[in-house]
């Protein structure tokens, strides 16, 4: 009798716990990353990264917002298109390391948004058509993307290798020509190995999780300083570090 009582209590507790977990998961849970990127480039060292970049800068993020989607005509898809949301980041260049150009630049990257729009209105530019729900099976299909607006980073999926930018952050960026969005040319980072967050005191946080063959490039810069990366780059012909006035 005692054993059965104990098992009964255990079953009740576990049942309640299980039901609670399911309820929390259903009402408050969010899906994991919905986009999986296969990067075009994978530079293994600083020479390769530098060769891929047209411009290398140290820059501060002025703002980040959702830009026009990349759109491909796909007549059989809902809405007749395949669309990939884009984040467009405006940065102020503080230091040129390779190449030269405008002091204010725009960088774009693929992005995946979840949740509802919060706060500020949508950025100016062409308004994409409202997504059409797909032909459904039984069940409650939920679209993975939400229409245009400006989002705080908390409502974003984090794409591995392409986390959202936030105003005020500083980065070292290896840049090349990016896609044209809404008639505007943008830059793009060569790969996750071309983006390094500059923290307090010059502490670097590389974005890439992928192994690097160079001790002062890519993921090997984690825990190191901006001086390490600058020193490594200055070994490469054509690199000249100069502040932008």
């Amino acid at each position, binding site marked *: *009798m005692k*054993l*059965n009582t104990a*098992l*009964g209590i*255990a*079953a009740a507790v*576990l*049942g309640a*716990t*299980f039901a609670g*977990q*399911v309820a929390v*998961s*259903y009402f408050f*849970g*969010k*899906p*994991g*990353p*919905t*986009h*999986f*990127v*296969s*990067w*075009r*480039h*994978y530079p293994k060292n600083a020479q390769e990264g530098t060769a891929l970049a047209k411009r290398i800068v140290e820059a501060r993020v002025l703002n980040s917002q959702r830009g026009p989607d*990349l759109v*491909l*005509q*796909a007549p*059989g898809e*809902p809405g007749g298109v*395949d669309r*990939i949301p884009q984040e467009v980041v405006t940065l102020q260049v503080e230091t040129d390391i390779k190449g030269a150009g405008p002091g204010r630049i725009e960088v774009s*990257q*693929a992005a*995946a948004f979840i949740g509802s729009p919060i706060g500020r209105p949508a950025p100016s530019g062409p308004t994409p058509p409202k997504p059409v729900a*797909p*032909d459904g099976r*039984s*069940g*409650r*299909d*939920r*679209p*993975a993307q939400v229409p245009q607006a400006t989002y705080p980073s908390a409502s974003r999926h984090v794409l591995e290798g*392409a986390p959202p930018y936030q105003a005020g952050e500083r980065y070292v960026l290896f840049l*090349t*020509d*990016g*896609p*044209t969005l809404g008639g505007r040319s943008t830059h*793009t*980072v*060569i*790969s996750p190995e071309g983006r390094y967050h500059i923290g307090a005191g010059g502490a670097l946080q590389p974005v890439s999780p*992928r192994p690097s063959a160079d001790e002062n490039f890519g993921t090997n810069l984690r825990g190191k300083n901006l001086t390490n990366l600058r020193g490594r780059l200055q070994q490469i012909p054509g690199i000249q570090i100069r502040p932008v006035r």
Partner: protein
Amino acid sequence: MRKRAITAALGVLVLVLLAGNFKVASAHQWWAWHWGVGLWHFWERPSKNLGVWVYGSYSTESNTALNDWKSRLSGIFTFTSYGSHTDVSLFAGNYGATDWGGLASIENYDYDWWHWWCWCKITHAHARTNTYWWTGTGLQGVQCQEFGHTLGLDHSNTGDCMGKTYYNTINVTSSHNRTDISSMYP
């Protein structure tokens, strides 16, 4: 006798509930993404079959990648080709000078009530390659990888297309992919 039966039943119930409070991860899986097919979803889609629509530029290379997966998963998973919108869209197009060469996306999903208890059941997915960067067998390899992502597979260093651009330059599947899919979809 009756008490023993009750004890046994309660014991089984406790074990089941204990197991239900944990989630089991599969090898090389992309987060918890999976299709609602097979054993755990036998009342909705007992057959492990997905519809695939191949369209756009370089459809020959896309179909070659799809046929590779069909052959690799023969007997454990099937794919039916359609000429219209279905479970998976496999396509290529020129997206311009993006930083990515391939991109897989979960376009629609639902709550899995019977297996993972999360918003992780795929109901529609896209596998796409940017022809600005890839053509020929390289495109086939990227499509091979992106299609694997739509099945719920992560990148992996297993000597096949799921490691392309990360670990190797291989454009085809391997026996490891079959093992992973078998474990994800019993």
